[in-house]
Structure formats: C-alpha cells, structure tokens
C-alpha cells in the first residue's frame, strides 16, 4: 500500500475472514457483554459481539460509579487509559426532608491514589472504550444490529438471528448480556417472563454542565477528585428510592431512582420527582447555574438474588443486568456485570477444552459465581428490595422525623436540653408507634446487615 499507514477498522488489523461458525456470540455491548467478549477474544476464540445501539455505550446510562477493584480484575490498570471522569474521594449519605438534611460524609485520601476506589464515568465513553479493547483483542464488534431471536437445534441454542439481511450467526455458545429487559433470556427459557414491576427501579437522570473548577469549589474537592452523594428522604416524594448526585469532569449527574411498582401506584411522574429533587435547597445550591446537557431514563433490576433467572442452559449463558445481578442497596451493577461477563467467558473457555456446551458443562458458571463476590453479595442483600418496598415510610417519615429532631436539638433557643429531649420524644412517639419503630429497625438490620 505504498508505505501508507493502515488503521485497523476497529479490529486487530489482521484481515481475517469471518468464520462460518463462531466460538461464541455475545449479545449486548454493555459491561457484561464487553467483559465476556474481551476475555474470549484475548484467549483466541472467534467471538462476535452484537450491539443494537449505534455504538457500544450509545444507549447506555448509569449514575454512575464504577468500582476499581472488580473492574481491574477484567481490565488491569484500566485507570491509565480508560475515559474516566473523576476518582471519587468522598461519599456522602443524606437524609433529606423538604427543607433540611442530615449529612453523613466519608472521605478517604486512600481513594485518591492507585488503585483508587471508584470513578465516575460516562457510559457512552466508557463502554466505547471497552468495545475498542475487545476489538483490539480480536473480536468481531458488530454495532447497530439487533438480535431478534435465538437459533435452536435439537433443543440447544446454536446461534442468533439478527434483523439484517443474511443475519443468522452460528456459534458453540451464546452469552446473553442484553441488560435489564431480558427478552432473549426469556426466549431461552431461562427467565419465566419479563422482570416484574415490583423488582424494578426506574432511574431518571440529568447531566448538567458546570466548569471544572466551579465543581471542585462547590463540592470542596481536590483537583480531579470527585464526590458521590446518595440521598434518601423527601427526594423521592416519599416513594421508596434514592436521589443521587455525582460529579463528573465538567458536568454533574443528578437523578432519582424509585421502585417502578410504587410509581405505578402513585400519581407522581418520574420526571416530576426529579424536578422536585432539584428544587431541594441543598441540591439546588450544588447545581445552580449548571445548564442541561442530557436527559435520560433507565430501568434497574433490583429484585436481587430471589428474582434472578436461571443462569445457563444448553448452549447459553446469561450475565449482568439480564441476569438481575444488581446490588440494590447501592445500585451497583456494572461491577457485577463485568465480573459475571468475565466468568461466563471463563466458563466457555473451560468448556471448549472438553468440547461440550450443554447445560451440564456450562453449569460450572453458577458455581464460579457462587464462590465469587457476585452471588455472595447478591445473596447477602437478597431481601433488600422487599424491605424497601414494604417499608415506604422509611423514605418519607423517618428522614422527616430525624431531620426535625436534629433541627430541634440543634436550634439554640430558650428551652433547656432536658426539656427539649422530652419534647422530641413526645413528638417522635406521636408520629410512629414505638413498637413499629423497633420492628422496622430490627428488620432493616436483618435485611441489610
């Protein structure tokens, strides 16, 4: 080519014809699918990753924090090259009412150095980077392609059918990493039906632009460092859910997540909850003058352990959100997605040695997950969503009470401290019967500990 440079078209530069049958097909280019694709391609397997969006990440959103250690398990030292926004050095938890908030803050200087603890990211950029890594490792990355159904042969999954002309692809095994709406997992007979409303949270989010140094001033951050704030209470209009504020490089993500079920039963609309949240004085102060960049909504499967589909079948595995692998307590899903994707790939690799991909062979995926943080965590918090939805007053009443107690206690007036305590106790009891208070806290402790 006359000494000219050659850019690989998103590949490893080796012009290889596509095989007639792939070693593996991965459906979905989110963290789960890309971790699986990258791991398989790196091991020399012919793997194709199909993503319906314009590119990997184009349709994806999250709060979002990604945590270093699990991510580094798949992509060691990723912080040197991945497009990250800020490393988070401070995590706050607020209990908010309409006009006041109790704030608990945790800050660690450890979080400001390698291997860090967590980063804020833009999924559109982060996923794109992951997909480039997968392409460089040798995978066939196929964006803008919707997988419509699975191909079957003798009761086994043997490939996928896409919406494109000539769109069937065969493979030894299909890894379903399609995210929260797991149509294919259902089609594979692994999930009984669509995820139930009571197990889903709806998150709505806005990205607001603000210059870097203004963000650092406002959130009291070192240069390049970030804050993550989770808020419960008035944020979500008394519905079970949380609000969040994350600092990116020159934007702020603000959003609320509420259980879909409670939203369906209430008259509130998700966007009005977000508006309401942004109006809170403590929140408003942080986002003042920041202009709207983008606006999005996404579902989070928060059913946890009990609502997970079967994870494997003949010729098929499920990973990430499609498998309901989200830790509802802190909406952590990207971690679990990355790790489960990697383990799905490792399962395929070990099955290749034996040359069989039936359910019995692929079943070791489950064992691998059980022995890892993925299912350990999910099991630990298995009652969390249940608890959250059956104790809606936690999100309205208690924060309100706690805040008013704090206000009473901290407001210096002419009342003696002893009188004040008595008054507060009366106030508190008048709102919540003590028995139910004790019960709530006991249950919360049991479910969440």
């Amino acid at each position, binding site marked *: *080519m*006359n*000494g*000219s*440079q*050659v*850019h*690989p*078209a*998103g*590949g*490893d*530069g*080796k*012009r*290889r*014809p*596509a095989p007639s049958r792939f070693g593996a097909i991965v459906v979905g280019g989110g963290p789960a699918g890309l971790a699986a694709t990258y791991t398989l391609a790196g091991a020399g397997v012919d793997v*194709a990753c199909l993503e319906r969006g314009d590119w990997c990440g184009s349709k994806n959103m999250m709060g979002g924090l990604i945590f270093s250690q699990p991510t580094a398990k798949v992509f060691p030292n990723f912080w040197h090259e991945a497009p990250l926004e800020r490393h988070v050095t401070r995590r706050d938890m607020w209990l908010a009412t309409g006009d006041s908030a109790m704030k608990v803050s945790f800050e660690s200087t450890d979080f400001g150095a390698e291997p860090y603890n967590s980063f804020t990211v833009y999924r559109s950029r982060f996923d794109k980077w992951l997909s480039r890594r997968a*392409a460089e490792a040798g995978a*066939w*990355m*196929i964006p*803008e*392609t919707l997988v419509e159904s699975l191909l079957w042969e003798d009761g086994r999954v043997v490939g996928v059918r*896409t*919406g*494109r*002309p*000539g*769109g*069937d*692809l065969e493979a030894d095994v299909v890894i379903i990493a399609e995210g929260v709406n797991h149509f294919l997992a259902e089609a594979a007979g692994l999930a009984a039906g669509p995820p139930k409303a009571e197990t889903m949270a709806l998150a709505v989010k806005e990205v607001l632009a603000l210059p870097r140094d203004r963000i650092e001033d406002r959130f009291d951050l070192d240069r390049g460092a970030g804050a993550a704030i989770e808020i419960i209470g008035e944020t979500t209009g008394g519905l079970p859910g949380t609000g969040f504020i994350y600092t990116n490089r020159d934007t702020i993500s603000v959003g609320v997540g509420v259980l879909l079920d409670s939203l369906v039963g209430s008259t509130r609309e998700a966007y009005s909850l977000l508006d309401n949240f942004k109006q809170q004085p403590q929140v408003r102060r942080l986002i003042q003058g920041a202009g709207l960049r983008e606006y999005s909504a996404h579902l989070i499967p928060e059913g946890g352990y009990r609502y997970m589909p079967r994870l494997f079948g003949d010729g098929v595995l499920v990973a990430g959100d499609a498998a309901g692998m989200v830790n509802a307590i802190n909406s952590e899903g990207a971690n679990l997605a990355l790790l489960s994707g990697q383990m799905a790939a490792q399962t395929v690799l070990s099955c290749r040695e034996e040359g069989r991909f039936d359910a019995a062979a692929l079943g070791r995926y489950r064992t691998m997950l059980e022995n890892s943080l993925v299912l350990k965590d999910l099991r630990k918090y298995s009652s969390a969503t249940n608890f959250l939805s059956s104790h809606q007053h936690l999100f309205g009443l208690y924060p309100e009470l706690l805040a008013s107690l704090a206000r009473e206690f901290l407001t210096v007036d002419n009342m003696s401290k002893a009188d004040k305590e008595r008054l507060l106790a009366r106030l508190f009891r008048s709102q919540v019967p003590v028995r139910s208070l004790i019960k709530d806290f006991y249950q919360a402790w049991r479910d969440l500990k």
Partner: protein
Amino acid sequence: MRINSVVCIKQVPDTTQVRIDPDSGSLIRQGIPSVINPYDLYALEAALKVRDSHGGTITALSMGPPQADEALRKVLGYGIDRAVLLSDRAFAGADTLATTYTLSAAIRKIAGELIAAGGAGVDMVFCGKQSIDGDTGQVGPGLARRLDLSQVTYVCSLLEVAAETRTVRAWRQREDGRELLEARLPVAVTITEACNPIRYAALPDLLRAAKAPVEVWSAADLEVEPDRLGLKGSPTRVSKVFAPPARERGETLSGPDRPPNEIAAALFDKLAERGLTIGGSRG
C-alpha cells in the same frame, strides 16, 4: 462492463448542535457529535446500486482528522471494497479549492492502483449534493474540473449506466423542474435526498468490515505541491464567525384568562400599528 467508483464521504458535526460561544465569539465544537454527511449516504447508495448491476469496485474517500476514520469504518459495513482517509496536518484548514485539489490527487492515485491491478481506472465519482456544515456543494463540481470528468450535479434519480456507449443517464433537479441528462463516463455526480436512502447493510458485510482496514494517506503518499494544500492552498479566509442575529423574542399576546377574540383583536391592533391594516380600498 465493470464500473469503478469513488464515493466522497465527509464527517461533519451534527449541525443542529453547533453554536457560537457568545463570550469568545468562536465556534463551540467540543462535545458535538460527528455524523456522516447525510447526503453522502445517498451518494453511497447510488454507487452501490451501480455496482449491484455492473460489478466493479467502490472506494470510499474522505479527507479529515484522524477520528474521521470512524465514518469510513461505518461505510465499510455497506460492503464496499476499500476505504481511504486523507489525514495530515498539512491538509487542515482547506476550503473547497484545496479540498478538491487533495481529493483529486487521491482519486488519481486510486485510479492508478486500479489500473496497475489490471482494471480500468475510476469511472464514476460520487459526492453528496452538499455538506451540512459547509453547505457549499462546491466539491463535486471542483473534482469534475480537476479530473476532467463530466459534471452532473443535483442528481435526483440515477438511471442505468450504458456499458456499450460508456454513458450514464441521470435526472437532475432544478428549481423549475427536472432535466434528463446523458453524460459520458468518466463522470462526477452529486446526489440529492430524492435518491434512495442507504440500504440496510447485510450482516456478512458488517462482519467483513469489522476486520477491514481503513487506509490512511498523508501528503507524502500523494503527488501534491505542499503550497496547494490545506490553509495555504485556500484562497478564502474566514474573517469572522458570529451567531446569526437572533430575532428578538417578541410580545406574548395571550394571558391566563384572556379570551381568544380579545387576543385576535389585540393582534390586529398591533399589526395596524406596524402599518399592516385590514381593509382594502382605503388608499
């Protein structure tokens, strides 16, 4: 007869999002997503149609910064044969004259390679009717002049290529109608949105594209005079950019409880104040 085509593809900012920074008076480019110039996809489809019926090759050609290879990767997915990106600092800042100079040098080289490989040269050059950022529509005709091609712009329907006579027939859109033109090959055509939209690429093509290379050529790869490239080779200069004079937001005539007939009366009173009076035969 096999027809070899070159399709010129430009990566452009999504212009609906481009704005002028009111403080600095400069263009805000950062964070604006890039897209393939929509008319170029119509051009690509027209080229694919010609290849469907005549065979031959299609080369996509683009001049732009390194990241413009994204656009070429995407068009590779339509099953074309080759993608070439002209990228070099020296090409930067080109107006349409310098652009056609550089693109034409590349097309000559492509033609040379086709001939060296035992084929004919380039028979057809396809461009979009205009780019949505520059909006000039000057590059297609410019290429025609520089490469001595027949020039047919604003093609709204491309008809069969007649192999025996080496001619092509095309309908060209004008303000007052359409004209059927017959042009001798080699030809440069610019394609409007009245042609067919780009097809849905087949999966096997996408798979092939996933591993196909985008070739990147610099000035050193072309037979060009450095002084005729990029900003240096551009006779035009942008002396100023500014936001279009915003129309002032006017007056709101409606009010919470104002009945429609009052609003209507108020409107025509206001119009009358401006000298727009209802009622004919007064003058």
